[in-house]
């Protein structure tokens, strides 16, 4: 009986309303903390080249988790579907670029928050159709946002400061005397920055979801008519979900370009990326924070590992492996969805339930 809820009575509601009411969960979080703050930055991941482990797995994974959290808030918690995630992440990235080039002395954290806010505003504007339309029609509206914004990323040269390349690129920039972004920044610095951002954003999201505003999103998702009769204004609930979600997606977009890729063009924010993030949310599990973690990690890491193994172990051509990993990922997604339509988060829940009974399975 490793994992049990019974026997840990909460005598005060405040204790029960805590983020991790179970003792076992607290231990799990502690172990994860030691791994991500000490073990991984020191030793990397087992069996993988250190640079590769940090630059191709850890940093992008954490950024994609933020992205997935953002989309999951909108899709999983508020029930509003969007295919504009890629473009909204682009809004965050271009906004960050403009902030740090227009105000070279701006603090990076402030620039990041402001970029998230710009993305939130754009998200609200393109979320307006959700007040009138649902389902397929809303998908089409967000698709229009996606195409319009990627068009703007190419055509509005002001956004990339009239660079001949058309790309946005991170200049070297310090915070508290340490180079945080740009070609001279250390991978380790960026790793810690992204890690702390991820933890803070996860904590904030889990707080909002369990409170009044999170409930208003779920009410709209589950039954919008009843929600309205209880006093929820659909306008406020839906647009706040678009805003909160786009805030996260915008921050993830800025992190993606300036803390991971180093430079990017419009195609880093295209419709394929929107689909990628959608896969992450669905595979992980709609309406689950743990699921957002699992989905992002699974969808990102599996193809990378397949490619790596194919190249280094079997000596396959990179192009062949690229296609092969895409096919394999697609197959795995279909299998997971057939086995468990509620995603990896539900599989994890079932496993926990079994652990609770172990070793007495009755």
């Amino acid at each position, binding site marked *: 009986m490793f994992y049990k809820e019974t026997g840990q009575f909460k005598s005060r*509601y*405040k204790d029960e*309303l805590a983020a991790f009411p179970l003792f076992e969960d607290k231990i799990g979080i502690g172990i994860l903390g030691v791994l991500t703050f000490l073990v991984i930055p020191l030793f990397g991941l087992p069996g993988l080249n250190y640079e590769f482990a940090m630059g191709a797995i850890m940093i992008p994974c954490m950024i994609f988790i933020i992205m997935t959290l953002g989309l999951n808030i909108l899709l999983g918690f508020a029930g509003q579907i969007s295919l504009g995630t890629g473009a909204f992440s682009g809004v965050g990235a271009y906004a960050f670029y403009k902030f740090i080039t227009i105000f070279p002395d701006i603090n990076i954290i402030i620039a990041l928050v402001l970029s998230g806010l710009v993305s939130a505003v754009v998200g609200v504007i393109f979320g307006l159709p959700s007040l009138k339309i649902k389902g397929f029609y809303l998908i089409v509206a967000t698709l229009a946002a996606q195409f319009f914004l990627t068009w703007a990323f190419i055509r509005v040269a002001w956004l990339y400061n009239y660079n001949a390349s058309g790309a946005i690129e991170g200049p070297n920039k310090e915070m508290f005397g340490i180079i945080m972004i740009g070609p001279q920044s250390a991978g380790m610095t960026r790793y810690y920055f992204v890690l702390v951002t991820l933890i803070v954003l996860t904590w*904030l999201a889990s*707080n*909002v979801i*369990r*409170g*009044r*505003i*999170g*409930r*208003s999103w*779920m*009410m709209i*998702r*589950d*039954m919008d*008519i*009843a*929600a*309205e*009769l*209880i*006093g*929820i*204004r659909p306008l406020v609930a839906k647009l*706040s979900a678009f805003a*909160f979600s786009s805030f996260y997606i915008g921050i993830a977009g800025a992190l993606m370009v300036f803390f991971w890729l180093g430079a990017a063009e419009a195609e880093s924010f295209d419709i394929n990326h929107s689909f990628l993030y959608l896969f992450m949310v669905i595979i992980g599990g709609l*309406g689950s924070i743990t699921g957002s973690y699992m989905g992002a990690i699974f969808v990102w890491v599996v193809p990378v590992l397949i490619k790596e193994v194919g190249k280094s172990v079997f000596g396959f051509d990179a192009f062949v492996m690229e296609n092969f990993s895409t096919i394999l990922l697609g197959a795995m997604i279909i299998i997971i969805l057939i086995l468990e339509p509620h995603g990896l988060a539900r599989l994890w829940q079932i496993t926990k339930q079994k652990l609770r009974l172990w070793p007495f399975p009755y």
Partner: protein
Amino acid sequence: MNEKAPKIMMEVKNINLRFGGVVAIQGVSFDIHEGEIRAIIGPNGAGKSSMLNVINGFYHPQEGEIWFDGQKRPSMEPYEVAKTGIARTFQNIALFKGMTTIENVMTGRQLQMNKNIFWQMLRYGPAIEEEVQHRKRCEEIIDFLEINHIRKTPVGSLPYGLQKRVELARALAMEPNLLLLDEPMAGMNVEEKQDMSRFIVEVNEEFGTTIALIEHDMAVVMDLADRVVVLDYGKLLADGTPKEVQSNQAVIDAYLGVPH
């Protein structure tokens, strides 16, 4: 019943509601006294649910006035009506399926909670105090309706009778002045009906909540209601005490005479 002249809480005057060619309600007027249990009965399609939908702002009648607390009410959206202290349950259960019982009941407190997004993000100080305070109230309601054992169960997996009870809990969490119940006992067995009747009477007597109730089971109506409105084909057929209505020839012909 009290002997003083009753205070009128709500009055609908000459309501006409049409959907295209379908006339759902035709020139119906009646009132609801403060503190009473008012039953609305009538055959299927008589316009009973539509009447509740008019009262809570979901349908907007083409003609007619609604008076509430002595004032003529302007055309309102449902969320505005909710703010005036009117709560309801639905004929076809309208719970939030993805949420647990306690979460569903907590949604009834949404209007009374107001800590902003920044406190919500921190879930600290005023935000958590507010959450705890309302959680306590919801736990009391859950105790009252005897649904403690399903507190953490997702409502989608509950049997029908319990779902109806959770829906009542959610409406009670709003601490309404006027509670609209659309067939709260439909599809229940005798025992469940008895429980539900007991809760309705207790809510009415102990909290002083005014209740408007749609119900098909005549035995229940005669037992619970102070006064009864009878609708038929969208028209008002009769209005009076259960006894008066029961002995009304038009009602007997249209409704009571037909076995259900």
